[in-house]
């Protein structure tokens, strides 16, 4: 099994189960034991996952990826101690972010539901042509990437969260945006879109949105 086998769902499941941090260790780039160089895919996954965590208000530094060879026991120990200290500084998951446990769980589930879509986006739009760590890091830190993400993923993620929240019962735009800590204008915009697509309906009497 290669580091590239690490699935977004693994990372998200760990956070959903209350892990305060997730660590991925992989072979050094260029030292692939297969010839797939799946460690580059792990690098993409790490960047994408951090981006997604950022969108739902979870500290992206709770996820860490490091390259380690089997001979680097001491370095591994140092890294783990450092990561552990860093996670302690960040506090318990959710508490550190000021997110209520239920909301956090909902948000993580919203991301989890989006995994198949994110995989498609990754394949279509987030591939880095050159296999170099620098290229990858530059690309994922670029404004273009942010634009791409805002364009393709952000809206979907908001809708996903709203839909999950509405499972509990009808809510007004304001209630939704407060519960999910999202911008009311954005919530309103996504509700309109979802309404047109027939995902939600507006209940005039309750002055609230409900699942269609």
């Amino acid at each position, binding site marked *: 099994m290669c580091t*590239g*086998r690490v699935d977004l769902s693994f990372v998200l499941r760990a956070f959903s*189960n209350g892990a305060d941090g997730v660590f991925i260790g992989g072979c050094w780039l260029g030292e692939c034991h297969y010839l*797939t160089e799946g460690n580059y895919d792990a690098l993409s996954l790490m960047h994408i996952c951090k981006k997604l965590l950022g969108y739902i208000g979870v500290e992206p530094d709770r996820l860490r990826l490091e390259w380690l060879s089997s001979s680097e026991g001491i370095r591994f120990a140092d890294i783990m101690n450092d990561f552990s200290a860093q996670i302690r500084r960040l506090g318990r998951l959710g508490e550190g972010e000021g997110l209520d446990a239920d909301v956090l769980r909902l948000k993580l*589930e919203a991301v989890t539901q989006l*995994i198949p879509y994110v995989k*498609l986006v990754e*394949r279509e739009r987030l591939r880095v042509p050159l296999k170099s760590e620098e290229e990858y890091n530059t690309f994922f830190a670029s404004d273009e990437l942010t634009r791409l993400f805002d364009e393709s993923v952000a809206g979907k993620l908001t809708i996903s969260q709203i839909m999950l929240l509405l499972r509990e019962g009808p809510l007004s735009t304001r209630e939704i945006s407060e519960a999910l800590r999202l911008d009311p204008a954005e919530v309103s915009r996504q509700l309109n879109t979802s309404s047109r697509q027939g995902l939600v309906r507006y209940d005039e009497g309750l002055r609230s949105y409900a699942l269609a």
Partner: protein
Amino acid sequence: MEKETVKAQSFNIAADDGLGDVMVVGGGISGIQAALDLATAGFKVYLVERAPTIGGKMAQLDKTFPTNDCSMCIESPKFIECDRHPNIEILTYTEVDTVEGEAGNFDVTLTKKPRYVREDVCTGCNTCVEYCPIKVPDRYNQGLSESKAIHIHFSQAVPLVTYVDEEHCLYLKDKKCNICVGVCKNKAIDLHQKPERVKINVGAIVLSPGYEVFDPRLRGDYGYGQIENVVTSLDYERLLCSTGPFEGEALRPSDKKHPKNIAWIHCVGSRQVIPGGNTYCSAVCCSYTQKQVILSKDHDPDVKATVFHNDIRSYGKDFERFYQRAENLPGVRFIRSYVSIGKEIPDTKNVTIRYATNEDGVKEEEFDLVVLSVGMNPPTGAQDIAAKFGVELDSYGFCKTDPFNPILTSRPGVFLSGAFNGPVDIPESVVTASGAGSLTGELLNYRRGKLARDRIYPTERDVEEEEPKVGVFLCHCGANIGRVVDIPDVVDYSLGLENVVHAEEGLFICSTDAAQQISETIREKGLNRVVVAACTPRTHEPLFRDTLREGGLNQYFFDFANIREHCSWVHAREKEEATSKAKDIVRMSVARSALLEPLEEYDLPVNKAALVVGGGVAGMTSALSLANQGFETYLIEKDSDLGGMARRLHYTLEGDDVQAYVADLVRKVYRHPSVHVSTDATITHVAGYVGNFVTTVRAQGRTKDIEHGAAILATGADEYKPTEYLYHEHERVITQLELEERIAGGDESLDDVESLVMIQCVGCRQPDKNYCARVCCGQAVKNSLKLKDANPDMAIYVLFRDMRTYGFAENYYREASTRGVKFIRYEPSDKPVVEAAGDSGQGALSVTAADPILGKRLAIDADMVVLSAAVVPAAGTQEVARQFKVATSPDGFFQEAHVKLRPVDFAAEGVFLCGTAHYPKHLSETISQAYGAAGRAITLLSHDTVTASGSVCEVNEADCVACGACISACTYGAIEWRETPQGRKAHVNPVLCKGDGLCNSKCPTGAIPLKHYTDEEVLCQIDAALPALVPVS
């Protein structure tokens, strides 16, 4: 089908017909490897060992350099492999008496010494050991602790049975006590046992009696045996080891306290021209000392370590970095000085050492413990061995071999493996073992497979309808785990986990006995899942999978919980937390095990042809050995002639004619009907996998596809082209190889040379090439001696950093020195400077260098400057590595699968390596390794099929949306489109799939699971790891 039990296979004189193919004499790591390779290649092997167990010296080591792997942990799986191999009969506690006959037909008489314990009845339960009243020094622990007059040699011993120490047993001495006989429930003890004579006929003999460590007691000049706190390095190895006298507490003998200030003394018994010493260099001590320094610092970060050394000989692969690692640790000093033991301080029992440095002159310093880095001697009774086997010894008392084939003894049909050929490290011992395998195969090819048997397993039980019934087996690993993790507590905890129906603990779950017990428990308790909580799958998973098969279960119902590397070793000081973590790890494994599915492995046909890349000495030797065993071999050479680097070598250090040898080899290659040579050839493409490669070769304008089952990469190395010391700018600055060509050719330019300077380490042992090129010191000595032969008056200066004339080459270094070659050491921070007298690029040169002994700068007028240029990876190495999907080391040489125990295998199956493409090496080392690679390739090629893992990806067609994400992810080309009634779907060729699982994580619909590591299996482990919170979905 009834299971053929391990017991039934074990040696039984009455039932055995005494007919075999090969006898391997000496059951250390080399003998073990030879036995395994030969048995796997279709020969029936008798493995004879005079000690009560196989294992040899390697079993006494704590760790192995330069990776610091646990020595026993990597060796003991091989004990079990030998024990379980249907073609190996192990005869321990057995001596060879006579060897009669000739190659192809040897009659060997053996004496099985009385153990006073019946091997076939003893269960190794140790009850007799508990009751035995007589304490004896434990030889396994170098006499530093005690065992009993009846005991098991060490916990992982094979066979795992006791034996009685004749010298100390009260009954055997005076018929006084037989308490052990009474307490043995199995009636296994027979104090009247007599020696048994056994006669065995074999076609060939592999001699691997190993070595003995130098005994400093004999000369007594370092106080060993008189001063308590002076120990040998082998004693210290036991002290460091968790199965050692103090369970891994490195305590000093006098007061059992942790030494805080330790000194090592190098070259004890080596490089000494004194009576009782050895003149040669023992080749391994520098690196093992560095290992002991590193391990001591691991045990106690505050310990101060001082190494008194002569030259530091870090000539092996990655040894230079290992040396730097040791040297750079805080509190570690490397001091270049001869030393003598001062005195023992009566109160503290501390020991003083007198030494001298250039800066401070003579000093005397006190240490808590002194470790003597003792060298290697010929094995005990070498003369006797030589007489019995009819082989000659060399002047050092080691076995004499053919100068161009270190595996051939003076007696045909008797092959040599391991350290009986001179001081060597473990990888060389393993290489020569595989090489002896290949040479034996050449001799006995006609009878391959005739006596061999296949392993038969019971039919797998169908457990599909059963609820999961998990058995958990927890291992103490001696003290490795048990000292930190509260194993009984984890056993109780395991019993409370869902699906667990059985849990138990053991001291060494991996011992033959315990593993057999597991398969019995599987049957008795109807287990359908097994979790072993012990060490690492890297070394032990194959063993436990095998255990499941013996228990009638599909091997994929096994899961390994690593509570040693992942727990006890990293949390040694937090015992409670470690126990709690061990519970977490076991819980995760148990959860995962419930979801495991039985998987089928694939039998792939093996194409019997081999491809050898590189037509130098390595490639030609491998190719011939393969062809001599009936395998069609394709030899690919990029140049227009065969011979490689050896074409530029003319004589060896020992004075043998290289060109005559190479010419003969080339002739044999061309004449052999089964060797197909392509010169001027390049490989353009490599497809396929183990057993079934297709390599496209372009040669002389034509392109052809070669189908082959195995490949040996022997692409060689290049001489570094110096950019330093006016090379290329001045006609009188040349390299060692150029010098050799001139000497051999009687070049006139040497006639008027009165003064010649050699500079060592040009282009290596520096940050960008951080390795020692191994051969250059020997090369410099060799050429110096040749020059002296022609012109004894020539002034020759060798400017060196450390003279690395390891092994017997040391004597030539000494000879050069006595014949007036001046060796002057320089520091890398103050390299020699070469200047030309004029700017014409001709005429005399001037070399200046600091002389650390005289403490001043020397100016030498030189008529010629010779650079010992490094050996660098051949230009095409990376390309070949890419084509064959094999790894290269940080220095750009090919990377073997394991530096110690798989030195000629690649991690990629079916591909092997040899020669300087692996690392710089001398010609004889290259030849051994070439035979080794051939031997390893034949363990594959001699079979009709090879088994591929069942842990591969598979498409669930109903979920496949034909997006192609998986196909673009798979660089093995294992996934292709297939038309189905439901349209186009992805399809995995399980034989090509390597199980990396990248496609699985790329698939948006989860349609291509990696079997054995499915999303469900991984997610349930995550859920089990963090059970405090209920998962969302």
